[in-house]
C-alpha cells in the first residue's frame, strides 16, 4: 500500500503543543509511507484539495489524517478520499487534538505521542480492506417521545411532511408544562388558547398515532428500523368507550387523590380527567386512591359511566412498533426545592412553586383563577418572588441557569398586579437574564408599569409570624445594591424553582443509547453545530430535554427535529455502515456465544451443511465488537477492526 499521511495544525490548536512538521518528518520514515505533509487546516477546502491532489500525484492507496476526533471530521475526510477515487475505508484517523494537544502541555512528550498515534494508524491502515456500504430500506415512520409543546410541534411537522408519527406521552394528556401555564411571556398570550388548537390537531391528524399514559419499554434496532416496545399503562377505563363526559368524577367518593396536573394545589378524585382541554380527554383511575381497587368495595364510577367504559380488571399492555427515527422531547421537571431549609423545606403551606402559582392564576384552575393562598384561602396583598431556587447554586449540585425563570417571574409579577390591583410584589433576584427579543423590555415593564419591587440579593431565611393583619411570612434577605438588610412581611411566597431533566430521563437515554450529562439532559451531537442530532444515528432532540429553553425555542427545535427526520427518511432507504462483524464459517463451532452476547440481536444461528453456524445480519450489526471479544476461536471479526489490526497497533506501540 502506498500510504499518504497528513498532519493538521488545526490553526494553533494542535501546533501550539505539538511539533507538527516533526511528526510529518517521522511519518515519512514509517512503513509504506510514501508521502507526508503538514497542513494548517486539513478540513478546509484547500486542506481537502491537498489530500485529493496528493492521492492523484503520488498514486496513494491509503490515507492517514492526524487531526481532531473522528467524531468531528471522519466523514469529511472519507468523502475527500472518495473524491480522489479511493475507497473511503482506505482511510484512518489519528486524534492528536483531543487525545494529545488538548490534554498535555509538554511539547516534546506531545510530539512523541502524536508520532506514536500516527504509527498505530499507519499499521492499522496497512491491513484495511475496501468496504462497500449497502442500501437498506427505512421505515417512513417516526417515534416522538414526550407530548410537550416541543414534541407536539415535531409530531405535527413530521405528519404534515407525510410521515406516520407515533407520539408517546407518559401522562394521561399531552400538553406538557405549557398546558399548566396561565399566560405566556413575552406577549401574555393565553397559554391554552395558543396550545389548545395544536393539541386538537394532534388528536385529529390522520398520520398521528397518539399513545398517552404510555412509556417506552425498550428500543432495539438501528437508524431506519428501530423496534420500539411501548407500554400502555392500565387506566382502568376503556379509552375506546370513554367519551370524557366526566360523570364518573362527580360520583367518585375518593376525594383526596394527589392532583398531579394542578401540581398538588387542592386534591382530586381517584378517577380523573386532568383538565377540560385534555387530549385525549379520557378518564384515568389512580390505583393508589381507588377504593374499589384497594378494597373491592365501591364501584360508583362504573355505575355512573353511561358508556360502560370502566374496567377494574384493566392491565398494562405492551406492543411493538417499527420506526425509522426517534425524536426525544421529554422536557424537564422541577427540581426538589425542599433541600432548602431556609425556605422552610416544604413546611409552610404559603410557600409555593411558580408552577403551582400558574395553576392559581389560571381561570380553569383549581381556584377558578382567583389568587388564594393555600393556608386560609385569603387573597394575598404582598407577594414575594424568590428567583434562582435550585438554579446557579453549586451547593445543591445545580450550577446552571434554568433560563426561563427571570422571564416567567416578571410575567407572574405583572399578572399579580392585574389580578390584585392593590397588591405589591417583591422579586429577589441574582441577575436579570432576559436576552430574547422584547424580553428585557418585558422585565422593565414589570418594574416600571406594574410596580414590582426588584431586590438584588438572596433570601437568607423566612419564617411564619403573627401580625395584627393575620399570619404572614417574614422574608429576610440582603439588598446587595443598597448594601442593606431587607425584611418583607409576605402573605404568599412564590419560588422560581429551577428545572432539571425529566424524571428518569437517563433511563430513556440508556434505552435510546444516547449520552446524557450529569444533570440528565440529553447530549446533542455537537454543542454549536449539531444541537438537534445526537451521536446515535436516527435519534434527534427537541425542547427542554436537551437543555432548558423557553417555549419559542422549544417549538423551533421541535420543527428543526422534524426537518432532520424528514430529510433522513425522505428517500425511503439508507446506506448501511459496512463496518460490521462477519463470521469465518470454517472456524465457527456454532456455540452461539456471539448470539447471546450481541446487544443488538444482530447474530443469528444458521445451518451450514447440517452444522450450526453463526451469521451476522449486517444491517443490524452496529460494529460494537462484543462478539469478537467473546468468540474463543476468533471466528467472528469486525471488518474494519480485526484482531490482526489491533495486534498491529499494539505491536507498533510496543516498538516505539
Amino acid at each position, binding site marked *: 500500500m502506498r500510504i499518504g499521511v497528513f498532519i493538521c495544525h488545526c490553526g494553533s490548536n494542535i501546533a501550539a503543543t505539538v511539533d507538527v512538521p516533526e511528526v510529518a518528518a517521522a511519518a515519512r520514515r514509517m512503513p509504506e509511507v510514501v508521502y507526508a505533509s503538514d497542513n494548517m487546516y486539513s478540513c478546509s477546502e484547500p486542506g481537502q484539495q491537498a489530500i485529493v491532489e496528493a492521492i492523484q500525484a503520488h498514486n496513494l492507496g491509503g490515507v492517514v489524517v492526524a487531526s481532531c476526533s473522528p467524531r468531528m471530521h471522519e466523514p469529511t475526510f472519507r468523502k475527500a478520499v472518495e473524491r480522489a477515487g479511493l475507497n473511503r475505508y482506505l482511510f484512518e484517523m489519528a486524534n492528536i487534538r483531543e487525545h494529545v494537544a488538548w490534554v498535555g502541555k509538554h511539547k516534546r512528550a506531545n510530539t512523541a505521542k502524536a508520532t506514536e498515534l500516527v504509527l498505530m494508524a499507519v499499521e492499522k491502515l496497512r491491513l484495511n480492506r475496501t468496504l462497500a456500504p449497502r442500501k437498506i430500506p427505512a421505515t417512513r415512520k417516526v417515534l416522538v417521545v414526550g407530548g410537550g409543546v416541543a414534541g407536539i410541534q415535531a409530531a405535527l411537522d413530521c405528519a404534515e411532511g407525510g410521515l406516520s408519527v407515533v407520539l408517546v406521552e407518559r401522562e394521561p394528556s399531552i400538553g406538557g408544562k405549557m398546558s399548566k401555564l396561565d399566560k405566556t411571556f413575552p406577549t401574555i398570550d393565553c397559554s391554552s388558547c395558543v396550545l389548545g388548537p395544536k393539541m386538537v390537531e394532534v388528536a385529529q391528524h390522520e398520520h398521528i398515532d397518539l399513545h398517552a399514559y404510555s412509556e417506552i419499554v425498550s428500543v432495539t434496532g438501528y437508524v431506519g428500523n428501530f423496534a420500539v416496545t411501548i407500554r400502555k399503562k392500565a387506566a382502568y377505563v376503556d379509552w375506546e368507550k370513554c367519551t370524557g363526559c366526566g360523570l364518573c368524577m362527580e360520583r367518585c367518593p375518593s376525594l383526596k387523590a394527589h392532583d398531579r396536573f394542578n401540581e398538588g394545589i387542592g386534591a382530586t378524585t381517584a378517577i380523573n380527567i386532568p383538565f377540560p382541554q385534555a387530549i385525549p380527554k379520557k378518564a384515568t383511575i389512580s390505583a393508589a386512591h381507588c377504593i374499589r381497587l384497594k378494597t373491592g368495595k365501591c364501584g360508583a364510577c362504573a355505575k355512573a359511566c353511561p358508556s360502560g367504559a370502566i374496567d377494574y380488571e384493566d392491565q398494562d399492555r405492551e406492543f411493538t412498533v417499527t420506526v425509522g427515527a426517534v425524536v426525544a422531547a421529554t422536557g424537564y421537571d422541577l427540581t426538589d426545592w425542599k433541600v432548602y431549609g431556609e425556605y422552610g423545606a416544604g413546611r409552610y403551606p404559603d410557600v409555593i412553586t411558580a408552577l403551582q402559582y400558574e395553576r392559581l392564576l389560571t381561570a380553569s384552575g383549581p381556584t377558578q383563577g382567583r389568587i388564594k393562598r393555600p393556608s386560609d384561602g385569603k387573597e394575598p396583598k404582598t407577594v414575594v418572588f424568590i428567583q434562582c431556587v435550585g438554579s446557579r447554586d453549586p451547593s445543591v449540585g445545580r450550577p446552571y441557569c434554568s433560563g426561563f425563570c427571570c422571564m416567567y417571574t416578571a410575567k407572574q409579577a405583572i399578572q399579580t398586579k392585574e389580578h390584585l390591583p392593590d397588591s405589591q410584589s417583591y422579586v429577589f433576584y441574582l441577575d436579570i437574564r432576559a436576552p430574547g427579543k422584547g424580553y428585557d423590555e418585558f422585565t422593565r415593564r414589570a418594574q416600571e408599569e406594574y410596580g414590582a419591587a426588584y431586590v438584588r440579593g438572596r433570601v437568607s431565611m423566612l419564617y411564619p409570624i403573627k401580625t395584627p393583619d393575620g399570619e404572614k411570612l417574614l422574608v429576610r434577605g440582603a439588598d446587595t445594591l443598597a448594601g442593606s438588610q431587607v425584611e418583607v412581611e409576605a402573605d404568599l411566597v412564590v419560588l422560581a424553582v429551577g428545572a432539571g431533566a425529566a424524571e428518569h430521563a437517563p433511563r430513556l437515554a440508556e434505552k435510546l443509547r444516547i449520552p446524557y450529562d450529569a444533570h440528565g439532559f440529553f447530549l446533542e451531537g455537537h454543542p454549536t453545530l449539531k444541537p438537534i442530532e445526537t451521536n446515535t444515528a436516527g435519534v434527534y432532540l427537541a425542547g427542554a430535554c436537551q437543555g432548558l429553553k423557553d417555549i419559542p425555542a422549544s417549538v423551533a427545535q421541535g420543527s428543526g427535529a422534524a426537518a432532520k427526520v424528514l430529510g433522513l427518511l425522505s428517500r425511503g432507504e439508507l446506506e448501511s455502515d459496512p463496518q460490521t462483524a462477519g463470521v469465518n464459517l470454517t472456524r465457527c*463451532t*456454532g456455540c452461539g*456465544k456471539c448470539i447471546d*452476547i450481541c446487544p443488538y440481536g444482530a447474530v443469528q444461528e444458521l445451518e451450514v451443511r447440517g452444522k450450526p453456524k453463526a451469521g451476522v445480519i449486517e444491517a443490524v450489526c452496529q460494529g460494537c465488537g*462484543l462478539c469478537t471479544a467473546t468468540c474463543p*476461536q*476468533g471466528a467472528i471479526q469486525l471488518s474494519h477492526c*480485526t484482531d490482526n489490526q489491533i*495486534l498491529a497497533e499494539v505491536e507498533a506501540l510496543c516498538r516505539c
Partner: protein
Amino acid sequence: MALREQLKKMILEVLPGVDCVIGWGAGYDALHAAPLFMRAPEDVERFLSGPLGAFGAVQNPALFLPELAGKKIGLVVKGCDSRSVVQLAAENLIKREEVVIIGFPCEGVIDLHKLRNKLAAHFVVNEPGGVTAVNLAGDHLALTAGGQEYTFKRDEIMADKCPRCREPNAVISDCFAGIERRADNIADDYEDIAALERMSLEDRFRFWEQEMSRCVRCYACRNACPLCVCRDHCAGASRDPHWLTQADSTRDKFMFQLIHTLHLAGRCTGCGECQRACPLGIPVLLLKRSLGRAVEEMFDYRAGLDTEAKPPLLTFRVEERKIKEREW
C-alpha cells in the same frame, strides 16, 4: 468392591443403547489409570480394574464429548466431571440428549504430582514402571518402588480440589450408583488464591514469571481442558489472527496462559485437568480459580451447575445486578 460392581451393572444396562461408554481402566502401570472406551460387554470387565479403584479415576471423561458429537455416549462421571458435562450442554457444545450419564459419589482422587514430590523426598524417581505394586487400604496407600515399600496417608496425596469440592456427587445423571455423599458442610475458602494475593504485585509477577518460564508449550493444559473446544483454531496456534509468536519467551507463554484463563472465565468448572496434565506441574489452576472466584462474587454464578443457566460473560445485559453504574 460394591461400588465398582454397581457401576458395572449400570454400564451393562446402558451399553446396548449407546455407541460406547467412557470410564476408567488400568493404565500402563499399577499407579496410573487411563480412560476406557467400552463398546462391548467384555470391555466392561476392565472398568476400574486397577488397584486404585475410583481413587485412580483422575481423568475427566467429559473431555471427549465435543469430539464425539452426533454419537450417543454413555459417560461415567465424578462430581467434577459432571459439572463439565453440564457446562458443555449449557454452552451448546454438546447435546444433553446424546449423553447417558452414570454418576457416583466421588471420595477424591490421587494427585500424581504430589505423590511424585513425596517419592522424590525418598530419592525415588517416579518413572513409568518404576512403581511395581500399589495397595490402597483404608486411609493409606502403600506402594513399592525399587524393591522398597512406602506408605502415604491418603489425605496427603489427594488432589487439592477434592477436600474443597462442593459437588462430590454427580450434579446431573441418568442413573446414580452408591449413596450420595454429604457435602453441604463443605466450603471453598479460596485460601490458595488469598495466599497468592497477599504477595506484593512485584512478587506475584515474579512468581508467575518463574513458573511460566518452565512452560514447554506442549499445550497439554489446553488439550486436557474439557471446555477448550477450539482445537484447530486455538489462539495459541492460529496465524490469523497472529496472537502469539513462536518465540520461546516467557512473555508469549504467559500470554497463552492468560488467553486460556480469559477464555475460561465464567466457564471453568475448576476440574483441574489443566494443572493435572501439565508435565511441569505449573499451578495454572490458580489463574483460573481466581477468575472463577471473581465471577462467583460478581454474578453469583458457578459454571457447570445448570444446563439452562446462561454463563454471565456470554450474555449481554444492560443492567447487571451487582454492578451499579447508575443510581437506580
